[in-house]
């Protein structure tokens, strides 16, 4: 009814960004300010490098999750796919004596894509609920890894792969910046372009926002879903290999268990768990925010017993802010509607 209140809100909304990116940036800045106040020596170039280091794998994983969350689904199998792809690639390399720095990343992505087909069949083919479907495939993939591929901790990687993992782009304040940052950034930019500029990218938003309308508009929902679950699998496989190369060993027990942190980063980054919303920029900020928290607690002298709780509080705050602003946004759109009808 009251059209008058629209204009100022519109400006704030623009500053806030399409998916609250502005608010997230604000929170990150506020946190940095707090850290600078409480522990002035903490903010160092080395800390920046450490945050980058701990963001790389989560960012690569988050890209796949973002695709699926925008499409209105949820995926909890991606960490299992990631470690399955990476660990089996290393096992395969050792058994055939292959030593290469680039091929393992491609191989892991291919294995990831193949595993993604399981999810695609369950979700696009059998129309199962995505949470339950991927929970099931997580168990299958994890179980198959431990039962058929191996459960042994491999303490040294093939040398060319180990070299890629150790290769430094540059060194900031004594902390190395891995070259693996580059492919992850390229993938992120690529995905952002696909999401914003291509017909396919817009279809993902469409099926997430209103599946029935998307179907009636002529989007082949099943086909789009198939492609994104396979793409997410490939991204996960790649991310798993980045993890293995960075840590310098292959353990089938790693990564699984971190999926909720990655999902939290994506949701904090503005992706709506109801679908149809989210951006690569937002996800990058969400990942950095969580890495910032996780990498500053020891520096701030927060006792070990409080670490988990603090991370939980930040996740809750981030998600609450997103939910709150979504509610406000939906209110705003009803006002718009009434303005149009009036």
């Amino acid at each position, binding site marked *: 009814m009251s059209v008058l209140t629209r204009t100022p809100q519109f400006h704030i909304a623009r500053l806030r960004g399409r998916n609250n990116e502005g608010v997230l940036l604000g929170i990150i800045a506020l946190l940095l300010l707090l850290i600078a106040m409480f522990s002035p020596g*903490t903010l*160092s170039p*080395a*800390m920046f490098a*450490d945050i980058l*280091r*701990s963001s790389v794998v989560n960012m690569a994983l988050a890209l796949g999750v973002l695709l699926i969350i925008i499409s209105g689904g949820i995926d909890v199998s991606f960490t299992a796919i990631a470690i399955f792809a990476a660990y089996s690639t290393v096992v395969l390399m050792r058994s055939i004596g292959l030593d290469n720095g680039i091929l393992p990343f491609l191989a892991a992505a291919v294995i990831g894509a193949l595993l993604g087909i399981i999810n695609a069949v369950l979700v696009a083919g*059998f*129309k*199962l609920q995505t949470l339950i479907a991927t929970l099931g495939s997580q168990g299958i993939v*994890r*179980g198959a890894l*431990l039962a058929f591929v*191996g*459960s*042994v*901790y491999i*303490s*040294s990687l093939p040398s060319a792969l180990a070299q890629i993992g150790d290769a430094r782009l540059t060194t900031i304040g*004594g*902390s*190395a910046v891995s070259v693996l940052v580059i492919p992850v950034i390229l993938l992120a930019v690529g995905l952002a372009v696909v999401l914003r500029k291509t017909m396919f990218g817009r279809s993902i938003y469409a099926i997430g926002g209103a599946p029935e309308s998307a179907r009636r508009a002529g989007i082949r929902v099943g086909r789009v879903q198939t492609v994104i679950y396979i793409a997410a699998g490939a991204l996960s496989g790649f991310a798993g290999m980045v*993890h293995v190369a*960075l*840590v*310098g*060993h292959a*353990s*089938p*027990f*790693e990564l*699984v*268990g971190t999926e909720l942190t990655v999902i939290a980063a994506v949701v904090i980054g503005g992706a709506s768990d109801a679908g149809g919303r989210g951006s690569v920029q937002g996800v990058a900020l969400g990942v950095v925010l969580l890495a910032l928290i*996780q*990498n*500053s607690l*020891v*520096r701030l*002298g927060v*006792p*070990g*017993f409080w*670490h*988990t709780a603090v991370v939980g509080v930040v996740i809750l705050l981030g998600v609450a802010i997103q939910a709150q602003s979504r509610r406000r946004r939906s209110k705003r759109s009803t006002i718009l509607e009434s303005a149009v009808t009036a």
Partner: protein
Amino acid sequence: MKIVRTASAIAFGVAAASLLAGCSAGIGATTDGATSTSTSMTNIVKLSGGDWFNRMETGNQEWAAENDFTVNQTAGDDSSPEKQIAIISDTIPQKPAAITVVPNAPESIEAVLKRARDAGIIVVTHEAAGIVNTDADIEAFDDEAYGAHQMDLLASCMGDAGGTYAHFVGGLTVTSHNNWVKGAEDQASSEYPKVKSIGDPISSDESADTAYQRTKELLATYPDLRGILGAASTDVVGAGRAVAEAGKEDSVCVIGTSLPSTAGDALKTGAVDTITFWDPALAGKAMLTIAKKLLAGEEIVDGTDLDIPGYEKITQSPDSATTFFGTAWVDVTAENAADYPF
């Protein structure tokens, strides 16, 4: 409508199939248990696979071959207490003669162990000193004595100058790890006044990468950090990697519980100085031997000889009548790592 019906039919089919699969597995297991009620034992460990529990399984099978029992090892696919509770619950109806349990969080499995004992199953535990619902708990050593021993190694490595040290634990709820922390702290305060702890232990979540990231923070935050003690087997791997990257192999001592296969090259390069452990194969055998003695009606008392190296004269805990200690720790440096091929 048609689509909905087909989908639900398929969902029903999948559910029915998995139910059948579940049933057949259950029946198989029960029959197996029924035919060998008195001669089967189940070893329930923290996490399936991994070098540590694979080595325990080696010991289990050696023992099983020498004694007329069958031994099966089982565990959850991650180290969560909830999954372990579920696995113990599932084991009870199979009626093994005894279960030998390595708990993730001893307090959390008290209730389910009580149910096992009420069902007439002998319960022997390990890494759970002071646990109530057990017939006997066998520790490779008194945890605090072991922690003190690690502190002796650390203090001698750090030299006369002393300095500060940080302690990693696999999880803040792991009793044994926290007892080692206390033993080390007590030993430092009574014997080595120049060796100071930075404060609460830090959780590595049993992940080498987390230990690595936290160590980088520690090195940045505490310039006088001279030592790191690890409790989980991957802690020294991650910590050693961070120390080596910082070029501080010589000035920072990294000592902790691990295995030669897990520590890998880190011992040779000097990133990790000394690892200590107890042989899980012998611990597995000790648990089974106790179970066998109890089944035969023998009593376990202070000074009982289990006829296993390090467990020839076990001592009773002053705090708990059912807790016994061996003296079965092993120190391994680059020189003698080859003697322990696991």
